[in-house]
């Protein structure tokens, strides 16, 4: 036969290296012949998911759809452009609140979520006492909706009320995202604390911080947050539990224009207010977190709604459930009960005081930051008692779940490799390895505030359910799998 050379003649040489997956005896037999082997640490996917794994794998749209989703995500250049009240940006009004994570009713809400709702009712003046606020919420009078459904994100409880100022991020095409301003640590609304101190801080943020930031930012012009993230990742931040370098970079960029707001008095600002703003930011290493989250939301949303794609475009928790969204399944949430993080506790708090995982901040992991970028932020690893090698190991493990590496968010410790980017539901289910999420830990009792910080893994059930949904709409030939 052979009209023209066979395409497989390259097979007919003694192989120098062979990849093996499955029985160790076959790997050993090759090693005994002096062949270098690359064994895959394979384990079967969770029970009941083999057919979905095969069906999604066989969908001819899979690879191009995933490439499309990832190309759209990496092309986003988020720019920080403004600070404005939530009422204007989101269009929420009296008795309407946004919250973190997948949809949630008051009855299912955890302690910190309830605490934050109570705190928001007090701040907005919808109730005079915590009891009255609780009664109002329990009566069903407070309308709750996920931040994610309003192009918004909020850390921890993620409560957004109409008067709160929010960051506005924008990409070249005009799409925007919003996120709250970070209140600092300790007894703060997002950790479920409420009361006078919380309300007072929120009012100051509304009347002083927000307007001065808005004015300074408009003077300065848009800040390229994509480039800012690239810098901070090279400086030891992972953008979730560590934002120290990034916050400093933001202040450095904005400080002159914040001071210049005094010249025109355009924010009605006084020198003392500007100094307070700078001191407030200085006292809060997490100030930039919400900006990074807004940027991550803008990036992740760009990958949404790509038919046939198995790329994760949102991971979020409401304090009760962990939920994910996938590019190929529209705005559907796939949820499972959230786990309690492992980590270090403040003061006299311990694991018994911890609420299950909460917050939209896992949007940072969704785009390769946070737990995925741990190799660039070895300082974080102390939260869970690991060493620098563990930090590198976690990031390397996350590359097993992702389809790409971010082109500009690079890790010096890994030879300037891009962060693991584009979580694939299929890879998560095939490997049985859940993403790693860095997180703060909220007290489980309403009003407590933050009790610690650490690591958490999403329940695999979110991913098996999502994969089953991707499989249900797959356009595959029959390939079996039981």
């Amino acid at each position: 036969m052979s009209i023209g050379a066979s395409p497989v003649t390259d097979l007919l040489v003694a192989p120098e290296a062979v990849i093996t997956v499955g029985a160790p005896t076959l790997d050993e037999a090759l090693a005994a012949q002096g062949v270098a082997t690359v064994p895959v640490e394979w384990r079967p996917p969770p029970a009941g998911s083999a057919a979905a794994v095969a069906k999604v794998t066989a969908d001819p749209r899979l690879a191009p759809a995933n490439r499309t989703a990832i190309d759209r995500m990496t092309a986003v250049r988020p720019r920080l452009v403004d600070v404005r009240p939530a009422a204007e940006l989101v269009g929420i009004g009296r008795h309407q609140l946004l919250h973190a994570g997948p949809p949630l009713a008051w009855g299912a809400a955890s302690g910190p979520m309830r605490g934050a709702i109570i705190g928001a009712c007090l701040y907005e003046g919808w109730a005079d006492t915590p009891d009255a606020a609780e009664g109002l919420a329990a009566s069903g009078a407070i309308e709750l909706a996920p931040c994610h459904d309003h192009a918004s994100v909020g850390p921890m409880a993620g409560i957004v009320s109409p008067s709160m100022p929010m960051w506005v991020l924008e990409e070249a095409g005009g799409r925007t995202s919003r996120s709250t301003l970070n209140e600092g640590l300790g007894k703060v609304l997002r950790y479920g604390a409420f009361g006078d101190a919380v309300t007072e801080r929120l009012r100051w943020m509304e009347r002083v911080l927000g307007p001065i930031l808005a004015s300074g930012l408009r003077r300065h012009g848009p800040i390229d947050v994509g480039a800012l993230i690239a810098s901070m990742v090279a400086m030891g931040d992972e953008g979730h539990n560590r934002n120290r370098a990034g916050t400093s970079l933001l202040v450095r960029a904005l400080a002159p224009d914040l001071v210049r707001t005094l010249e025109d008095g355009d924010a009605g600002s006084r020198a003392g207010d500007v100094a307070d703003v700078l001191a407030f930011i200085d006292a809060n290493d997490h100030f930039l977190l919400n900006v990074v989250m807004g940027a991550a939301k803008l990036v992740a949303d760009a990958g949404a709604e790509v038919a046939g794609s198995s790329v994760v475009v949102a991971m979020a928790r409401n304090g009760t459930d962990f939920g994910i969204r996938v590019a190929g399944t529209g705005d559907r949430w796939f949820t499972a009960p959230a786990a309690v993080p492992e980590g270090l506790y403040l003061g006299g708090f311990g694991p018994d005081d911890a609420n299950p995982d909460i917050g939209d901040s896992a949007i940072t992991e969704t785009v390769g930051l946070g737990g995925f970028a741990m190799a660039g932020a070895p300082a974080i690893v102390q939260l869970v008692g690991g060493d620098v090698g563990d930090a590198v190991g976690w990031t390397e493990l996350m590359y097993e779940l992702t389809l790409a590496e971010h082109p500009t968010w690079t890790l010096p410790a890994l030879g300037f490799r891009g962060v693991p980017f584009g979580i694939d539901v299929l890879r998560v289910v095939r490997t049985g390895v859940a993403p790693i999420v860095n997180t703060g830990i909220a007290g489980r009792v309403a009003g407590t505030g933050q009790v610690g910080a650490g690591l958490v893994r999403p329940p695999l059930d979110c991913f098996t359910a999502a994969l089953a949904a991707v499989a249900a709409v797959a356009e595959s030939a029959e390939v079996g799998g039981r």
Partner: protein
Amino acid sequence: MTESVLVARGRYHDSVTLMRASAVARDITGVETVIAAMGTELNRALLVQAGFAAPDATADDLVVAVLADSPATAEGAIAAIDRHLAERRTSGSGVAHRRGKPRTVESAAARAPDAGVVVVSVPGAHAYVEAIAALRAGRHVMVFSDGVDVAAEVALKGEATALGRLVMGPDCGTTILDGVGLGFANVVVPGPVGLVAASGTGAQQLCCLLDGAGIGVRHVLGVGGRDLSSAVGGVSALAALAALDDDPAVEVIGVVSKPPDPAVAEAVMSAAAQCRTPVVLALVGPVGPTLTDAAAEIADALGVTFGEPQQWRPPGRSELPRPGPVLGLFSGGTNAAEALVVLERRLGPVRSNVHPDPLRRIAPFDSPGGAHVLLDLGDDELTAGRPHPMIDPTVVAERVAAAADADGGAGVVVLDVVLGHGAHPDPAAALAPALTAARAAGAATVAVLIGTGGDPQGLDRQARALVDAGATVHRSNARAAEEAVALATGAGAVPVGTRSSRP
């Protein structure tokens, strides 16, 4: 002099990285000035100072400016910087930090760009996913796994054809690539023979018989037991045949299979007829040659004399066995099929779990009293969730022991013992006690020993241990079956030098 300026929006690199990249480009002949920097105010001023036009760039944008003696040199310098910056992200230092194994074939393939072959032996329900990943990563794949849906096999082979890759399997036990064995493989001296094998143990038998005649085998390309079925259409066999035909080191090609689908057989024969290399078809079945005949035919094609395959006998006069039927216990499917044909030709009906005639098929654990029985203990149905008898011969030993014990048990036990990479390290030792017991109970025992002098278990050592346990040992499966027939019919040992008849 030409100046060339590139502005890459939103691409951040630290200044040290950029200075190193600039230095690379500065070494290029004809390059006068190179500046690679983020577009900060300071750097924009530096560019103007250096004679470039003020670039439209911000602190977030990368600016590369080159002054060179020609546009081509300038472009070359910019390309060199771009390459340097890209390389820093993908190469080198990161690899040293790698801890932990890859979790998927995709990940392993990314780490090992030079690994041209992937061996998949995960449970059958999961094999498609790993195998397709190998193909999509541009690798050939051997699927050792059995229990793979035929639909998955068809899909895999369709994609492999489109990608110009070969799928060996599913249920591919044996492949040899220029002397390197994948799966179960005997240690063979590379020589002029290339095999296309839809049967792993059939290929092993052929390799070992050729080895016995001093003929080396260069490649064995396993294609899976179902490749020559009408559903699959011989996709891999045809591709393997073409590849072997293109290899100048291959002087004779053998095709080993159980009887294929007639239309597929037609296609294979027509492809074989067009090969420049002579092709010997060894399609083992009721009307085909035995593997021993095929080995002789390959030897003939090479002009090599094929002597009588080696055998080892216990010392002393062999006594006639106790009366009773023949029990065949095989770990290799093709050896079982070949033995079944030889036994039925002389003994009449034999019951088997792999009998092509449904009326003579039995469940593997049935023991129809008085009838001749032949079991393929390596059949898919019996290996689900259990090691293959070639890896762990315990199941064979148990059957031999049971046959010895039973009232009215077998008169003659015939079994195969397979050596080589992947097989049990000392199968003769695992079988010896049961064989000794069967012999003591009055049964005759015959073993076909499939191995070469190079196999790690040691051909002679294994043969001696089997003989010490009272068994007669043959390197030829057909001869072993013929001996079992002779013992069962009271004809005694098969005279040396006979050739089985070719229908």
